[in-house]
């Protein structure tokens, strides 16, 4: 079976952007799936399982990222990542909300 590449777009919503802790959450999540997962900004593409590459995306609050997954569990992987980034926003504060 030829693997189809699934793709979604997510927006970084937490105020501090994709710093080390959120990057860690993504790679931990991605690491649980068999699919190959990449995350792209308009400049770079990163392996979602490499913390170094995720960091180098330099995604700040408001950045839109394309997430591509290829493999048997691709759809589930994308859904989980979307939930982490956009719904849970890494359990971090959003802009405009003062603590």
């Amino acid at each position, binding site marked *: 079976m030829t693997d189809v590449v699934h793709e979604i777009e997510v927006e970084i919503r937490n*105020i*501090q*952007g994709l*710093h*080390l*802790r959120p*990057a*860690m959450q993504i*790679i*931990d999540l991605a690491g649980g799936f068999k699919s190959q997962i990449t995350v792209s900004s308009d400049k770079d593409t990163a*392996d979602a399982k*490499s*913390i*170094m*590459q995720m*960091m*180098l995306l*330099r995604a*700040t*609050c408001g950045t839109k990222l394309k997430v591509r997954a290829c493999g048997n569990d691709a759809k589930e992987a994308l859904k989980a990542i979307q939930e982490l980034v956009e719904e849970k926003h890494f359990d971090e504060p959003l802009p405009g909300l003062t603590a």
Partner: protein
Amino acid sequence: MEIRKGIGVSPGIAIAKGVVIDSKDYRIPRRSILDSQRDKEIQRARNAFAAAIRSLTEISSRKTIEEGKIKDIFAVHMRFLQDKTFRKRITDFIDKERVTAEYAVSAILREIASHFEGIDDPYISERAADIYDIEKRLLTHLLGKMREEMEHLREEVVVVAHDLTPTQTASFNKTFVKGFATEAGGRTSHTAIISKTMGIPAVVALGDMTSAVTAESLVIIDGNRGVVIIDPDEETLRQYRNYAQQISLFVHQLDELKDKPAQTKDDVRVQLLGNIEFPEESQAVADKGGEGIGLYRTEFLYLYGGAEPTEEDHYQAYAQAVKVFSRQPVVIRTMDLGADKLPQTIRQAPETNPVLGLRSIRYCLQNMGLFKTQLRAILRASVLGDVRVMFPLVTNLQELRQAKMILRDVMEDLDEYAVPYNAKMPVGIMIETPSSALTANHLAAECDFFSIGTNDLIQYTLAVDRGNEHVSLLFSAAEPAIVRILRSVIHDANKAGIGLSVCGEVASDPEYIMLLLGMGVRTLSLASPMIPEIKKIIRSVTIEQCNALARRVATLDSQRQIKNLLRDAISQILPETV
């Protein structure tokens, strides 16, 4: 072949393989390796990753690490260390660029950090700091390994570094270290002091040079001329081997003076004592003809191992030093840490001006427990010989009185437990600040001896940082202000009839010996390798000549005139010394 010029701070010639010591707080310079060393460096990098993961696992499992920010930081570091693409980037860099593992780690992490610069986001700088943390974690393992290797050297080497810290030099296996070359430092930096004590050549203030030394480089250190030669050609190497031989011949001739007294031609007796850092060096002092220890620097007790030394640690060290000189003086200086010498473990919040901060006797008076531990050990050792105690950096009478009061407290404690000690142990102070020098007449009334520490006295009087290569040329004992302040202290001590010695660098500088004698100094304390040469000078002059010279110096108003006069005087008497 590469020739570098610096400041020669300890004489002699060393020819050996160069070993570069890096410090993890300093930018790691680019250092090339040979093709054949690539596999070894890649393996070193892999080992550093493995070791960092092991130690991180160990730290994270400790109960004290609670949930929260710190745990997150450790978890993130762990992800980085386990990131195969990250590791590959470093090993690929070593492979392609042929550099050391340290440099690859440093360069790659700094490149990653640089991606976060110039981005308009207030949280970016924190990300760069996170990256530097990871760099430090890996370098700790790479450089820590290096330190272990320095402890277990099996062949002769010369050490090349940006600068050396006391903690680094304390861990060297000194049998195999034959010389030092550092990029930073001045005439009286730590490297200068330690190399003189060890009697090995050293050149400092060389500027950028660690990157020029590869793992296979042969290095010549010429401490006499202040020159370092990397990878010398055949002819240069041959010349230097001859030169080294001549020098060892000269040293051999001086050794014949060992059993002759340090006495001027007109029979004025001078006492030559040794400065030591480690107890085992007191034997070297005796071997060179020293008549006791005039300055036992005890800081190394605090720098070894990182933990505060116990009373027994102190006592064992002092007993060992005193054993060699059971009837001759051994002057133990209490802890003089602070400023550039404080190790991380004892350091408090960073001070803005540590040279003028909480250090030395000031630190001891505020940290009574640490001070009393040392005083108890000194008192216990006082029954083993002619032990004397000396307080550093005293600036006024109040401090001297406080220190003496604490000494009396400790004596009473010992009385309670019937521990024997010498109740009449002489108590002295270092004269190394302008304020103690200017009030020397008062201080002399309440202590048994002075020892003039010229290094600090010059630094504080001239307001010149002796370790700063940009101003270190202004650091000179021939400044009229220094000559005047010395004369005044010597006068006050002699008038009060208390003991007086000079223990700074000046006491081992051939050019200043006649002046010191002429001003009334009769005891000098210096690094043991210099004792024979200084003795030769003393045995070649008369006190009349010295007095006349001191009188002429008093009439001069510039450093240059004084320096020239001193140089001329000694070169007329002993042309080969200068």
